[in-house]
């Protein structure tokens, strides 16, 4: 299935892009993160990230569907 990923802050810098669409067999965000972390060399442990699917915070074991938009959120630093 096809998943659209958005990247922010240091993850975007590391990936060298703000978004990408990939073909994946990852069933849940946890597996998807392991896949893209390997591709792009992300060093964050998943415990330090949150995940959003289709614009809403989601658990790491949420089932992914074709066409989903997934964002791995690094620790935030607003304010």
């Amino acid at each position: 299935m096809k998943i659209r990923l958005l990247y922010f802050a240091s993850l975007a810098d590391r990936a060298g892009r703000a978004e990408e669409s990939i073909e994946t067999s990852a069933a849940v965000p946890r597996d998807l993160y392991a896949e893209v972390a390997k591709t792009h060399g992300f060093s964050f442990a998943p415990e330090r990230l949150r995940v959003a699917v289709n614009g809403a915070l989601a658990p790491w074991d949420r089932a992914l569907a074709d066409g989903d938009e997934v964002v791995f959120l690094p620790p935030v630093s607003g304010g």
Partner: protein
Amino acid sequence: MRAFRLSDSPIDAASLRVSLEDPAAGGCVTFEGWVRNHNEARAVTRLDYQAFGPLAEDEGEAILAEATTKFALRVARCVHRTGALAIGDMAVWVGVSADHRDAAFAACRWIIDEVKRRVPIWKNEHYADGESGWLHPDNTPADAAGQR
């Protein structure tokens, strides 16, 4: 008008203050966060803020809604900047009005703390030595939805 919003242009605190007015309110407390010229002993020359827009606005709105249930408020509002900011620029504005000051002070403090902890906004600091870096605090809880 949404209670929380992102802004890519300067924050107008005077007009936001008017939005807190309510005949039943006995006062307001506001907080302005400014860009300072140093962080952890490094000289800072400017900042960029990046936000995951849709989720940042939803999460900010949720924080303000939670604040109005936790504290006896009349109005609660927050605006956070995105984009390039200079030293001294206002990065965030929080304002609440309430019948009594205790609720207003406590709510304003709670809101800015929750915004810093939860809203998906990231700060890229540019330093005087030419380096720059995204700040990703170690103490940020990585809680997923449903664990709060």
